[in-house]
Structures are given as structure tokens and as C-alpha cells.
């Protein structure tokens, strides 16, 4: 018999609806789990226990009264700590925002509140979402629940680890270059990076505005579909939010892939991709073929340049987005200074970690007069080229299959002093952000160390349903999420 905290959101949703369990019981179960394992996993930065229980009681009252509640009402959800929560600290895992309490909610939080999801707390991440291992967090590194001496991935490492460790039933992460999919892959859970514009960014503390996208992480595809259906939709507060009608992704989920054309791009299986990863991903593709999908070899030749373009564009935007952390109005301010400039310099030197400073400097450089055209200008051209290549591919196929990450989770500390090696872990994921596409990572087995491997499925813009259906079809014939022993 599974503990409540071990169950999927879709099962719990039915149990709550059928009044087999109460929201309070479920919430208490999750918090007991957090208390039992979080000192090992370190997923959470801030807990919201009191408010969560209050909300759970309120939901139970409503359910008893017979009020109509959403599918995720009463489901405990953890939130990445770069998504603004009114009255609840939002630190971006940075010293800079250590004591920052937002005066407003992100749009996704308002949507979750309206749907009566229960927010468990704020989850650890790489500082300002810059990193691939959650080691750049100012507070602490998060550990991979499948192997505590390994990283959970990043930047949404806390979001993926919390779900894998059953410290939250589902969670929200954000994905700028792979920050949802990569940790989902490392932690053996499902993570969806939605189409750019599908989910409002209002209230998401920006890293790279043109690439950032909030998305769900869950133990199964249906859980992810349920949360995505709640958080997506046009928002007038976000100019880049798309006008689209979204159907209920979870209700429309089907495991049928007959005739679905899946492209396998050779550039995603080349040098640097671990053999065990390659084999697992290709096996997963074969399984889908057995279900009736049509497999095609394709080529996306500009993939090799994507990482450079990504680091130029994202750092450029970050250098401007993070300029507001100047010690004037909120967040950290240095204690001793003798002038305005001195205050700025000391505040920012002391308040930001090394990785953040590295990217601010890189971004400042590529936007500088005399260098703009050679770096930022060229990267934007590459972005166009990469998008065009995807467009070309999607004229012929439905879904692209690739590894999410070249390897499985590495050891804590292994790459932290080698930024280039760290950046290279994003090689399979950044193209999706550059082209504004949706992609999902689903577990597709483990390597010889029993570390999870992820299958990445990439779709055309606003093809979330198709992606989820494909992932669902694969999930139904695979092991799916494996509960780690903690």
C-alpha cells in the first residue's frame, strides 16, 4: 500500500473527489515526508506549512458543502523560488533576495490559488536560475533523491528533487535552457517546458525574458497535463503571452501514437552523448515504433551552434534583467559604503554568486558598443536559423525524439569549477528555448548506476497535447517513475 505522499496527483484527485481522503490528511502526509527526508534532499528553501494546512481545511469544508472544485484542488504543489508568491519569501536562492517578500502573486500562483492547489513551499534552485546542478544556490546544494551524492540537475533542481523524493505531489519549475527538463531527467520524473507564451511569465523573476517559461514537473504525464491545463492561458499582464484556446490536456490524454511521425535528429546523438543514454533513448523510440509510430531520421544542422547562441542571448538579457538588484529599493544592500557607486558595486559584488556575476559580465560584454554585432547580433541570426530548421522539420514530422541530457546525474562538486563542462550539459535542451518550442522529458530507464535517463520529445509550437500523448503512450509501456529509497 502506497503512502499518500507517494501517489500521483491524478489518483489523489480522484480519492479527494470520492472523499476517500481529506486534503488535510494529504497535506499532513506530504509535510511528514518533508520532515523525514528534506534534511537529506534539501529541496526546500521555505516551507508554507501553516498556510497550506489552512488552505487544506478550507478545501475540505468546501468539498463537504458540495462545491465544485478543480481537478487539482487539494493537491500539494511545490513552487520554484523564482516565482513570486505574495507574502511568502521569494529568494531566487540568492543572497540578494534572501529576505525579499513579494507584494504580489505571479499569475501562475493566482491560477493555482483559484484552482485551490495547496502550496507546500518554495523550492531550491540555482541562483537566479543560472546553473545546471542547483549547486549555485546561495543556501545549499540539493541532492538527487536517487543518489544523494549526486546533483539533481538544475536550475529547477529543488522542483524535480522534491517530486522525486515525494516531498511534493507536483511542482512548478522554470525552463530557460533546459531547467525543467534536465533536472526532471536526472531525477527520473516528468517535466514539461511549454511553448513560449503558453504560460504567463508575470511574476517569474526574469533570467532571460525571451527564453524563460514556467512549466510543471510531476511523477507521471497525466499529473503534468493536469497542472499545465491550470497554469496556461493568455494573460494581459504579459505582453508575450499568446492568445490561444487551450483544451483540457489531461482529459484529452490518449496513448495512441499510430501513424505519428517521430523524427530522430542525428545531431542529438553525436559526440558527448553517453552510450547508455543513447541506447535507452533509441530503445524508447523503438518502443514507440512498435506502438505504430513512424520513425524518420532527420538533421538539424545548426544544433552545434545553439549552445553559443543560447549563452550569448540569455546572458545579454540577464545582464539587463538583473541590473535592478542595486540595493536601492529591496533585497540586499551592503553595510558600509561611501558613495552611490560604491554602494552599487559592493552590493552587487557581495549579493551575487560567482556564476551570476560571470553571466552578467558575459552579457554586458556581448551588448557593448563595438561587440554587439559580432556577438548578440550573430546569436539572434542563429536563433532565426535554428527556428527555421525546426519549422522545416515539423512540416514533415510530428514530434522530435532526443536525449534530454547527454549523461546521467554527475557527482556534487564534479563540474562546479568547470563552467564550460557545466554549460555543455544543456546541449540537448537549449535549442527548444531558442525556437520557443514545447518539449517534455519522460523517464526512459536507468543506467548501470541505477541513475534515471530521460527521453526528450520536442513538438511544434502549441503542440503540447501531441507531446503529452506521445509521452503518455511511452509511459504506459515503460517503468515510468521509480520511487527512490530514502
Amino acid at each position, binding site marked *: 500500500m502506497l503512502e499518500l505522499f507517494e501517489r500521483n496527483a491524478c489518483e489523489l484527485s480522484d480519492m479527494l473527489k470520492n472523499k476517500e481522503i481529506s486534503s488535510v490528511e494529504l497535506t499532513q502526509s506530504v509535510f511528514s515526508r518533508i520532515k523525514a527526508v528534506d534534511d537529506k534532499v534539501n529541496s526546500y528553501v521555505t516551507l508554507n506549512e501553516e498556510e497550506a494546512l489552512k488552505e487544506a481545511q478550507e478545501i475540505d469544508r468546501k468539498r463537504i458543502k458540495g462545491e465544485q472544485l478543480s481537478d487539482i484542488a487539494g493537491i500539494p504543489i511545490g513552487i520554484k523560488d*523564482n*516565482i*513570486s508568491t505574495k507574502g511568502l519569501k*521569494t529568494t*531566487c536562492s540568492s543572497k540578494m*533576495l534572501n529576505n*525579499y517578500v*513579494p*507584494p*504580489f502573486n*505571479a499569475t501562475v500562483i493566482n491560477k493555482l490559488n483559484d484552482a485551490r492547489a495547496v502550496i507546500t513551499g518554495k523550492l531550491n534552485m540555482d541562483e537566479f536560475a543560472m546553473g545546471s546542478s542547483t549547486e549555485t544556490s546561495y543556501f545549499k546544494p540539493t541532492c538527487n533523491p536517487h543518489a544523494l551524492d549526486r546533483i539533481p540537475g538544475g536550475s529547477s533542481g529543488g522542483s524535480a528533487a522534491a517530486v522525486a523524493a515525494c516531498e511534493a505531489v507536483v511542482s512548478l519549475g522554470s525552463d530557460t535552457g533546459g531547467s525543467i527538463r534536465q533536472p526532471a531527467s536526472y531525477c527520473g520524473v516528468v517535466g514539461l517546458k511549454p511553448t513560449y507564451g503558453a504560460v504567463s*511569465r*508575470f*511574476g*517569474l*523573476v*526574469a533570467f*532571460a*525574458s*525571451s527564453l524563460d517559461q514556467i512549466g510543471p514537473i510531476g511523477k507521471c504525464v497525466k499529473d503534468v497535463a493536469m497542472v499545465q491545463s491550470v497554469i496556461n492561458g493568455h494573460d*494581459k*499582464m*504579459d*505582453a*508575450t503571452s499568446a492568445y490561444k484556446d487551450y483544451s483540457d490536456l489531461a482529459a484529452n490524454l490518449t496513448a495512441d501514437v499510430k501513424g505519428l511521425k517521430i523524427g530522430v535528429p542525428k545531431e542529438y546523438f553525436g559526440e558527448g552523448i553517453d552510450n547508455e543514454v543513447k541506447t535507452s533513448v533509441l530503445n524508447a523510440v523503438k518502443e514507440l515504433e512498435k506502438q505504430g509510430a513512424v520513425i524518420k531520421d532527420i538533421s538539424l544542422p545548426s544544433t552545434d551552434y545553439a549552445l553559443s547562441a543560447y549563452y550569448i542571448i540569455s546572458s*545579454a*538579457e540577464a*545582464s*539587463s534583467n538583473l*541590473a*535592478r*538588484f*542595486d540595493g*536601492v*529599493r*529591496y533585497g540586499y544592500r551592503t553595510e558600509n559604503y561611501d558613495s*552611490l557607486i560604491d554602494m*552599487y558595486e559592493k552590493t552587487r559584488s557581495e549579493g551575487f554568486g560567482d556564476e551570476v556575476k560571470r553571466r552578467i559580465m558575459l552579457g*554586458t560584454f556581448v*551588448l*557593448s*558598443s563595438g561587440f*554587439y554585432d559580432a556577438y*548578440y547580433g550573430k546569436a539572434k541570426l542563429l536563433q532565426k536559423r535554428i527556428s527555421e530548421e525546426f519549422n522545416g522539420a515539423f512540416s514533415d514530422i510530428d514530434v522530435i525524439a532526443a536525449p534530454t541530457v547527454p549523461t546521467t546525474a554527475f557527482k556534487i562538486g564534479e563540474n562546479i569549477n568547470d563552467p564550460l563542462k557545466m554549460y555543455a550539459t544543456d546541449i540537448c535542451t537549449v535549442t527548444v528555448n531558442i525556437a520557443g518550442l514545447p518539449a517534455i522529458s519522460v523517464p526512459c530507464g536507468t543506467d548501470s548506476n541505477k541513475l534515471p535517463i530521460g527521453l526528450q520529445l520536442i513538438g511544434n509550437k502549441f503542440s503540447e497535447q501531441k507531446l503529452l500523448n506521445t509521452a503518455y503512450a511511452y509511459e504506459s509501456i515503460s517503468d515510468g517513475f521509480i520511487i527512490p529509497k530514502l
Partner: protein
Amino acid sequence: MIKGYEVVIGLETHAELNTDSKIYCDCKNQFGLEVNSQVCPICMGMPGALPTLNENVVDYAIKMGHALNCNINRVCKQDRKNYFYPDLPKAYQISQAEVPLCENGYLDVMVDEEERRIGITRIHIEEDAGKLLHSDKFDGCSLVDLNRCGVPLIEIVSEPDMRSSAEAKAYLETLKSILQYLDICDCKMQEGSIRCDVNVSVHKPGEPMGTRSEMKNVNSFSAAVRGIDYEVNRQIEILENGGTIEQETRRWDDVKGVSVSMRSKEDAQDYRYFPEPDLLTIVVDQERVDKLKSEIPELPNAKILRYVKDWKLPQKEATFIAESVELAALFDSCLAKNKYPAKSYSVWILGDLVKYMNETGKKLSDTKINADNLTELVGLIESKTISNAGGKKIFAVILEEDKNVKKLVDDLGLAQVSDTAFLEKIADEVLAANEKSVADFKNGKTNALGFLVGQCMKASKGKANPGMMKEIISKKLDNI
């Protein structure tokens, strides 16, 4: 030309647009409210807050673009201008760099009865910053008021086409009146709703353009004139002493009447402009551009030309009326009645009306003067029913009270008397009582006539028809 040098002036003018709300959020766009009361997470640059464009700002800027004969770039971006300052909460200003909303226009202005064409390089939209507050009371700190953050601005950049401070002043005044006609800016200089940066250089005729200096903190048109004159003299003096002009940014101190160096070219900031990723490309369809054009009223520079050409007004008077939206509206509705000469209206408008408005600080709309009562008044004078002096008495009443003009003639007893017998009787009495003046007149002192007529008017309590009175007196004097 000053001291053998040609002066070259270009202006960058910032005008705050009077939209109801700010450019990127729903906060009220209003001056003078309590410090930090008109702010929200968006204009305060809180983490995660995002801008969304107020489309009215685009409309207002396009109208200005039409008024200044610009091309409208129907597709353009917004860009981030990055710099640190405590009044700029995001540490970048959203502006337009490469492609402005409007460009390549011109403005014709009248300077010394001559028309001058000033090129307009561009007009772009951007957001205003907050304001730092300094005081001894703040215990060594400066405080910041963010109410102005996100107030919409247009920046109007001229070509370096002006050759004197007088031209610059005429350009600025014409810009101001156009902004008022379009009703897109409050144009309150004291509230900083129009501000300008002045670029000045000098060179000898036939030689290449000189190095320019940019002068900031010019907060009024008269300060612009003083600043330009100061800067021109400063540069000429340096050149005459064998020096060279440095490209630099200077700050105008209007109290001391000097400009001081802020930063040299080497210290120029690199603003690292790049396209604002939080906002979409601005796309305006042709229909909207055309509709905005159709909404533009006749502009003051066109009015001046019409008043001078069609209504024979002197340029100075035409300009004075045309540059005021409300005076021109009154004048135009009077002219539309097509009853009396333009001059018979303009004397009242430029005389008693403007005097009253200046003295009381009232606007035309605060008075009771309108085209109907003014035309009635002018009609009574033209028909000699009342004298000019009587007209002034009536005008003083109808400035403040909504009274019937004809009834006032009776109430105030102002109807002129043209009855010859009555007038002759007065003339006889006055001549008898002023023998000395009569003698003076006879001795060639012709101005005694005026005195005698004046005495007659007085005796008639202002009711005598002054023209007839004069005629009668003259005739009687001739016969003495």
C-alpha cells in the same frame, strides 16, 4: 552669425504625454500627487513584474509625427537603454533606439516675419524616470519619488538646422503650441512636462561644422535662449583664444547663468541598447495611421498663415492668437460669423481679454466671453449704437457675468446720443465754459480740439456719439 561665427543648434525635446495612465502599467499619470502614491510593482521595477504597452501612447506619438510631417514606421521595436541611477528602478529605460515610431519630418516656424524650415530627425516613445528628493531633513540621505516612473514621453529630435537662439525659441514655442493643439501634453513647464537638451556648435562660414557640446537641464524656453547664448559665447571665446572645443555633456545652471561640464566624450556611457524582450514589436496598420491623421486639427502654423493672408492680421497678432488653442477657437468662431472685420475682434481679444486673463490668471473658459456676445458687442460698436468706451464697460461685465449685451446697454445707459440738437446744446455749453481752450485753438494749438471733445463727452456722461461731437465742435470753432 555672431562675431564672425555661424551657430548651429539642434534640440532634443522631451514632452510628457497626458494619457490617463502610465505607458506600461495602469497607474495614474498625474502630476503633484503624494510621493510614491501612484506606483505599482510594474513601474517600481519589482522582480518579475512585466510591462505592457499603453496603445494610446502610440496614437499620441503618431499624431505628433503627422503634425511634424514625419514618416510613420508602422513596424518598430522598443529597446532597453541600460544605466544605473536610483530614480530608474529597473536600471534600464524602455525607449526606442534603432527604429523610432516617426522619422524624417520638418517643422516650419516664423522667425522675424520669415518662414524657416527645421528638419525633424525622429520622434520616439519612452518612459520617464522618477525623481530624487534632496533635503537637509533626510539626514544625509536622498529619497526617491517613483510617481513619475513610467510617465509616457515622446522625444522629438531636430536636425541641427537652427542658427540662433531666437530660432530655437521659435521652434520650441511652435512645438509647444502644436502639442497643445493635439491635446497630447499639458505643456506645464514648471511641472517639467516639456524639457530639452540643447546641442550647440560654432564654426566660421565655409569651414566644416564645429565640435558640439550637449547641454542638459534646460527647463524653460527662456533658459534655452540664455543657455544657447552663453554656450555660443563660451565656444567662440575658446576658439578665439586658440583653444579647441571638447565634445562633452554640460549642465546648464540657470540660476548662475553658466554651463558646467558633466562628462567628456571619453566618459560617455555605453547604454548597451538591445530590443526589449518583454514587449512585442509595435505594428500599426495603415488604417489607424490614416485615422489619426484625420483627427489632427488645423495647426497653429497654418492658422498664422491664414490669419495673415486671408484676414490681414499682422504676423505678431496672428501668432499670438494662433498659439493659444482657446483664443484661436474664439477668434475662428467669430470669423465664421462673417459679419465684421477680423480686426474688430482681434482688438478685443488681444486687448481687454488677454489683459484680464493675465491679471486674473484665468483661462478663457473661466470667463463668460464667447463668439456670440463678443459679436453682439462688436456689432453695437460698428453700428455706433455705443461708443468704444461704452463697449469697454460692457466687456468688463460680460467677462464675469452671463448678461445680455443689449440689456446692458440700457442698464448702464450707454446708448450713444446722435440727436444733433442735444449735441449742439452740449457743444455750446462746453465752448462757453472753456474760453481759454478756444483761444488756444484759435492760436494754432490744435490739440485743444481733443480736450474740448473730451469735455463734451464728459458732459454727456459718455453717451454722445464721439464722431458727431467732434464734427460739431470743429464746425463751431471754425465759426467763432
